[in-house]
């Protein structure tokens, strides 16, 4: 700021300019033929009032304007900006679903608010400062590597689009810390540890609402981390759907239920209307009150920046709802989309709708071909399975009958279990073979086994879910070699004894050992003690659920936005057409394993799959956010990164953002205008 005498001097300038206007100018003498006309002209203009002269003198006003602007510039007008420590910056921006919440002061989304804050930071960067932009949701991406070009940085920040995905900061942190702390490498020969590059100190700004998955390991090294919480200071009420599923009939004994859980991230209970649509038809509606957070706001402590420090100590309130859809499903002819909706809009609308697919309640047809296998019979005819499947038993002779051949070719069966037998041609359905091979040369027994221990069970496959085979003893068996693309399910010390392999849209399981031995003398001793273990009924239940229901349960698999969706159509189409909720289409070609991979499921909603060129919907699948963390839109006061808890930034050093340069520029413009007016003789 200026001192009083400097102000005095500055204040004297305008009167000085004014007085100069009344002084005689030093004029250039020019000889003219006669001043007669000039004198008359000037006399006309000089009806010599001083004020008239001043009023018409644009140049004077411009000069006074220039001085005025300069005086204002000397006052150093400005606003509070942010002082950026250091010279290298990383802007880590959360673009997960919760960043779409509009609980900011201005009502814009959190992401937009974060972008605005970053623009200010970019403006405050010195000309030699470099910065980079990393965004993260479920995945991370380096949107812009280090650059000093502020225009590029702003453009990149501006181009960040919100996603409908969850938040996983882990890999983004690895990318950021990796750039600030280059790794070390070891030269094995010389046994020395070499630093590959110098670590460069940088400051990382994390713009997030703090709703991120746990970070297990975080070693910032040279990286200074600053967390900028974005969003409302107090958690606003948001009712979100965190679970929406249609249950498996097997678990509920035949009834079909939709299960919904609502979550309230505010402190006060909130009453909302909810609706359930099947297709476009409103099927059920209700008004429910969702309780608020478990611990009330006044019992929580406040952080340094006014936010609630321990918001996670008070989990959001929840309410579960159940809708019985058995009767609705019974009359369905094809799979139908179900939409569950919260009627009242709130600050975060992405979790106000959830989708699911309801399949028609059709019992599965299963044929078990066996002469004598009480264990198989027992395990396939439990009450639970009976409710969802029509299970027929037949002897091996039945395979030669015309009825079987016709039914098998027409696809009447969903699953056929062959116990120590094999048909002439494979039926148009999934199959399970006990101690026999499907016709053809794709499947082979490679080696006979005697008393072999089982060392591995592939529990990641749905058929082997919860099936533990390690304690099962097998007397005689054979090693299996399956067709291309087969998956080993159970392995002995020598190799696979149970495997599953694809067959043009169907799947075949081959088990390399019999349950019962048919001896020549008519005895039927057990070849294994598997039937005595709980793993056998589990296995049978999994087989019937997974293979017997065909694609019915495919649609029940939860897909999240951004996931790769594996699509297995009912028939082995070569190309399919996937239509997203907005109507966009994408054609997919069959993968070598007869399935399709769809990578564009970025939005929540119902996606439909048809054969290319056909109008008949093959199947539907739903993509849902359903993320408790994202739906709890309370902004966290601190970010837990590894063992480090980073407090939300409040200690921004207030720095001035001056406008004097702008004013000086304005004064220059006024001066230029004056010069043009003076020289060009435009109207004065």
């Amino acid at each position, binding site marked *: 700021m200026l001192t009083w005498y400097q102000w005095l001097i500055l204040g004297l300038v305008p009167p000085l300019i004014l007085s100069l206007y009344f002084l005689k100018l030093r004029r250039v003498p020019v000889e003219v*033929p006669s001043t007669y006309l000039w004198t008359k002209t000037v006399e006309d203009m000089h009806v010599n009032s001083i004020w008239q002269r001043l009023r018409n003198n644009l140049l004077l006003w411009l000069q006074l304007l220039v001085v005025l602007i300069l005086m204002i510039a000397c006052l150093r007008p400005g606003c509070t900006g942010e002082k950026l420590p250091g010279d290298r910056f990383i802007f880590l921006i959360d673009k997960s679903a919760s960043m779409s919440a509009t609980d900011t002061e201005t009502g814009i989304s959190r992401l937009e608010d974060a972008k605005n804050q970053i623009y200010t930071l970019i403006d405050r960067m010195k000309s030699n400062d470099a910065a980079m932009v990393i965004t993260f949701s479920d995945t991370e991406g380096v949107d812009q590597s280090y650059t000093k070009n502020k225009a590029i940085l702003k453009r990149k920040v501006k181009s960040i689009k919100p996603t409908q995905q969850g938040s996983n900061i882990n890999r983004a942190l690895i990318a950021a810390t990796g750039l600030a702390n280059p790794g070390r490498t070891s030269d094995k020969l010389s046994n020395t540890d070499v630093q590959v590059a110098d670590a460069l100190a940088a400051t990382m700004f994390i713009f997030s609402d703090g709703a991120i998955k746990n970070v297990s390991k975080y070693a910032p090294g040279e990286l200074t981390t600053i967390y900028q919480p974005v969003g409302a200071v107090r958690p606003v009420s948001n009712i979100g759907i965190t679970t929406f599923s249609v249950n498996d009939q097997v678990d509920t004994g035949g009834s079909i239920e939709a299960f919904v859980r609502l979550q309230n991230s505010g402190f006060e209970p909130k009453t909302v209307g909810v609706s359930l649509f099947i297709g476009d038809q409103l099927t059920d509606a209700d008004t429910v009150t969702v309780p608020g957070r478990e611990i009330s706001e006044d019992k929580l402590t406040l952080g340094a920046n006014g936010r609630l420090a321990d918001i996670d100590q008070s989990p959001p309130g929840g309410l579960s709802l159940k809708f019985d859809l058995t009767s609705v499903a019974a009359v369905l002819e094809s799979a139908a989309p179900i939409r569950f909706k919260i009627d009242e809009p709130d600050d975060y609308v992405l979790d106000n709708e959830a989708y699911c697919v309801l399949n028609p309640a059709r019992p599965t047809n299963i044929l078990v071909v066996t002469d004598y296998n009480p264990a198989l019979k027992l395990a396939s005819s439990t009450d639970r399975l009976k409710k969802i499947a029509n299970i027929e038993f037949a002897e091996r002779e039945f395979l030669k009958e015309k009825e079987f051949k016709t039914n098998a070719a027409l696809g009447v069966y969903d699953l056929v279990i062959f116990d120590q037998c094999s048909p002439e041609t494979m039926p148009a359905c999934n199959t399970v073979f006990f101690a026999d091979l499907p016709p053809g040369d794709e499947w082979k027994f490679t080696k006979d086994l005697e008393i072999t221990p089982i060392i591995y069970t592939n529990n990641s496959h749905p058929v082997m879910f919860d099936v533990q085979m390690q304690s099962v003893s097998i007397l005689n068996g054979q090693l299996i070699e399956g067709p291309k693309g087969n998956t080993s399910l159970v392995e002995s010390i020598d190799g696979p004894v149970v495997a599953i392999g694809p067959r043009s849209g169907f799947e075949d399981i081959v088990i390399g050992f019999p349950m019962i031995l048919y001896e020549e003398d008519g005895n039927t001793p057990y070849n294994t003690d598997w039937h005595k273990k709980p793993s056998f009924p589990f296995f049978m239940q999994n087989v019937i659920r997974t293979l017997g229901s065909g694609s019915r349960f495919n649609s029940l698999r939860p897909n999240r936005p951004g996931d790769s969706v594996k699509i297995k159509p009912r028939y082995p189409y070569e190309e399919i057409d996937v239509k997203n909720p907005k109507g966009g289409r994408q054609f997919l070609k069959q993968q070598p394993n007869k399935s399709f991979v769809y990578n564009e499921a970025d939005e929540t909603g119902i996606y439909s799959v048809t054969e290319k060129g056909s109008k008949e919907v093959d199947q539907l699948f739903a993509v849902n956010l359903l993320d408790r963390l994202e739906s709890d839109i309370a902004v966290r006061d601190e970010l837990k990164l590894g063992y480090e808890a980073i407090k939300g930034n409040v200690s921004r050093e207030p720095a001035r953002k001056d406008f004097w340069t702008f004013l000086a520029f304005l004064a220059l413009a006024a001066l230029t205008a004056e010069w043009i007016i003076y020289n060009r003789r435009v109207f004065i």
Partner: protein
Amino acid sequence: MAKLAPPKKNSQDEPLLSPALLAQLERMELVSRKIFRGRMKGERRSKRKGQSVEFADFRNYVAGDDLRFIDWNMYARLDKLFLKLFMEEEDLHFYTLIDVSPSMQFGNPTKFQYAKQLAGALGYIGLCRADRVKIEALDGSRNSNAPTLRGRSSLWQLVDHLERMESQSTVSMTEAVKAFCLRNTGKGILVLITDLMDKSGYEEALKYLVARDLDIYLIHVLSQEEIDPDINGDLKLVDCEDQDIAEISVSKRLIDRYKQTLASFIEQARDFSSRRGIVYTMTSTERSVDRLVSRYLRQRGLVR
């Protein structure tokens, strides 16, 4: 001191009357709206009856009449003496007055040079038609050395006189015209070439001329710099005649105002002239003399 639009050097070196212009002028004739009495026979009909071959009228003989003009055939038939009257062919006084004030030294070519060219051109037309041509400077002197010229052969004298004519010290226009009127009593056509830039006014001077019952043509010469001045900045304008000073700060508004003043000045002069039977023509030095004579002055009836 800078001078507004100093004359180009070569404009002074150009011949006063080019051969092409002379050829054009030979076909022209000065026209007087009034018929004046000349002193010598010229090539135009006079109001006076005279001795030409063209018969005019008869009148009764009175004692003292020239017996040569008595129509004897008539006397034989009627026994009365009649005198035959013939149209007299007379010459014409053609005066040209050139303003020689220093203000005429401006422009490109200078207004003075332009005036001399114009005077020369008009004078040559008069010479070709055997009129009595006299070109005088408005210098206010009692004894003019301007020759009175007749006949085409006097062209060289005319040119010589014009070339010797110089812009002289300032005498007011009224004084100069008064002196001219005292010196010259003949009637005829008078062409006054001036820029009218006389602070004491031009009206009095024109009134003197009107009183002489002359056929007056006023040619108002202005330079382009006076019509559309190209000046900038804060200036002290110095009058070349009386060193009067006008201080101006040039602006678009001022220039516009000046043009308005000039327009009203011209309008005033035109109005004053037409009220008194003076034919007024305004011209710029940019307009060529042959164009002025062959087109504008022909339109106004001075030549045909």
